[in-house]
């Protein structure tokens, strides 16, 4: 799957995007976030305030219980502050 990070999720993780192959047990956004947080301290820090992280799959907002699939483009970011 393709992961995209924005704003402080991006600056904490230290990259804007990456291709990752998640283990089979990662079936939902929740599971994905749990697994990402194990990839290193910068991931753990970026995902620390778990409940505020917004998730978009293929450009649509989804809740944390939404399923994830290997060919998804999944974006993680803080609440938006434009306008």
């Amino acid at each position, binding site marked *: 799957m393709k992961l995209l990070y924005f704003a402080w999720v991006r600056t904490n993780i230290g990259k804007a995007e990456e291709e990752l192959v998640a283990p089979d047990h990662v079936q939902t956004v929740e599971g994905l976030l749990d697994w990402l947080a194990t990839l290193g301290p910068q991931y753990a820090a970026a995902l620390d305030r778990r409940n505020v992280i917004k998730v978009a799959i293929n450009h649509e907002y989804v809740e944390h219980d939404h399923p994830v699939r290997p060919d998804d483009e999944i974006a993680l970011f803080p609440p*938006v*502050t434009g306008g």
Partner: protein
Amino acid sequence: MIRVQREDFDIGTELALLTEGNSKIGGLASFVGLVRDLADQGAVSAMTLEHYPGMTEKRLAEIEAEARSRWPLDGVLIIHRYGRLEPGDRIVLVATTSAHRQAALESCAFLIDWLKTKAPFWKLEEGAKGTAWVEAKESDDRAAEKWKR
């Protein structure tokens, strides 16, 4: 119409295009958001707007469609800039035209309120002590809430 761009825009030109040649329009409402200079509060001298290309345009188009479903509108224009902006710079323009004044006024307020909580933009402020990501405001959530159905 939706535009996401780095360049500045001219308010007069954009609003003129929105009404030109359509004499069924009774009202034109618009809102322009600008970068505030908070230097006296030790905060912003400038900011950089990050966005999510591709998703941004889709979410703005969705917001336009929602406005059109709620009010009888002729024209809808949303221009949002990204990149580095300085105090006094224009960030966003939303404008609506309608045969009816209240439809134009209400939909214009709706567009900017929804945009603020739904369009994937993030502000990185440059202050005296370095840069900081702007935190989302509860007041913006409340403003968007009032349009919920």
